[in-house]
């Protein structure tokens, strides 16, 4: 594998929930150190793409290749151990566990190429969490929960972070703060695949963009192109 080659390749993935088909041949690539954004409206298959990569909803056809290894059909815990961190859209904090316990269950020993995250480093990134260690996850605000869910996934020392709609349902000020944290993670070398509806949020973070529509890739290109071309943005996302 060359240094510039993709770490994650999704090749022609088809995924269905029972009889309802959601993805119709999605292909995408993420290179090491990149922040790639998967844009699209509700229900186009962003979450399903992420779940297919993670093994939570295994694809019915197509391949998911991680650092040259075919991980299609692996159970989620093996995918996680291989270095892919999943931050779910609905946060899914363990409500009865304290903030510290939520972080502790996700701790995995650092792996070569991983970020070397520890509870201290995560608290440095999200200082608010350090004040709340003994609080139960269910009693956190939406913004605090979003920080905790990212922090929790970082405890597993992933090389690639799958972020599913992190800005959803958060107040504008909180979204700004979150964007800074994600930007910082990126600068520190983490590879990120971001699924978002919030175009502003994602275009500021992303290097490259894929636009999903009806379960297939409609557009792919550098984020700059969408940023600068309002007509294209309007055409693709009807904004």
């Amino acid at each position, binding site marked *: 594998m060359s240094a510039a080659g993709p770490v994650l390749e999704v090749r022609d993935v088809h995924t269905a929930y029972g009889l309802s088909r959601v993805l119709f041949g999605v292909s995408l690539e993420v290179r090491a150190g990149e922040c790639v954004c998967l844009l699209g409206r509700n229900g186009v298959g962003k979450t399903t793409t992420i779940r297919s990569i993670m093994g939570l909803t295994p694809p019915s056809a197509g391949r998911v290749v991680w650092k040259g290894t075919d991980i299609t059909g692996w159970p989620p*815990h093996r995918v996680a151990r291989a270095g892919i961190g999943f931050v779910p859209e609905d946060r899914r904090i*363990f409500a009865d566990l304290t903030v510290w316990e*939520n972080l502790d269950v996700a701790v995995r020993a650092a792996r070569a190429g991983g970020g070397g995250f520890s509870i201290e480093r995560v608290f440095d990134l999200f200082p608010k969490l350090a004040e709340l260690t003994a609080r139960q996850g269910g009693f956190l605000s939406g913004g605090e929960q979003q920080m905790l869910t990212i922090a929790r996934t970082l405890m597993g020392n992933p090389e690639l972070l799958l972020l599913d709609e992190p800005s959803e349902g958060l107040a504008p000020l909180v979204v700004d703060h979150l964007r800074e944290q994600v930007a910082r993670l990126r600068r520190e070398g983490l590879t990120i695949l971001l699924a978002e509806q919030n175009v502003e949020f994602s275009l500021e973070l992303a290097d490259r963009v894929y636009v999903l529509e009806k379960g297939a890739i409609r557009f792919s290109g550098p984020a700059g192109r969408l940023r600068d071309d309002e007509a294209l943005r309007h055409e693709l996302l009807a904004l």
Partner: protein
Amino acid sequence: MPDPTFLFAQSLSGLTAAMFLFLIASGLSLIFGVLGVLNFAHGSFYMLGAYVAYQLVQVLGRDPAAFWWAALGAACAIAVLGGLVERLLLRHLYAKDVLYQLLFTYALILVLSDAAKVVWGTGQLSIARPPELAGATRVLGTLVPHYELFVLLLGPAIALGFWLLLHRTRAGRFVRAAALDREMLGALGVNVSRLYTSVFVLGSFLAGLGGALIAPAKAIVPGMDVEIIVEAFIVVVIGGLGSFWGTFLGAVIYGQVLSFGILIFPRFSIFSVFALMAVVLILRPWGLLGRPLKT
């Protein structure tokens, strides 16, 4: 006003019954809370624990610690049996409708109960109390067998140990997290299917231990499996299925209601417990310390 000594004796015997029930119901409740499986065969594991302990006592014979080795051996044997059942059979049913799991564990009751009859017959068997606990002490005017005192102390000790395991160890945090969201826990790199097996093994161990420990206090008979599973269900329904302290509270309440209900309705003592369960189900369908199911 009845004699206070008598009341004390009644409540003590109710408490003893409660400690045994807690041993069984806590495993049942744990397995339901984490795996989402109502294991009807939990009572069969308890019964087999008693039979295996009996067998081991026969084998060990005159060894002064025979009973203790037998109890430990029986609990371990049942833990292994539980592990095999989960790994080889039950796990294929998780993805299926709950009805399949109920039918499977119900079928297991029938199979295990017939198997026990084939091996140990249908007569009553019994184990002698361990020699160090054969005596009795007078407490507040009541003669209390030492074995009963031992059970009264063991119950809270196991409850405390269990609680510490769930709340003060990493394995316990995994178990609590799996009960809340197993898919998320798996996506964080935890092998949830192995965790399920461990939980099932632990629950089975407690069932086997309960069976072995009750053997010196009660006769070992076919049918004890169904009797205990009904009681354990009432306990977890009262306390709240999946709630740890709820199970403890449910067991204590059950024991007291049963032992005092006998005084009021001597021939229908079980009636008072069912009445209590009905009241709890009407007022708090999720049990005293349980939580309403999320919809």
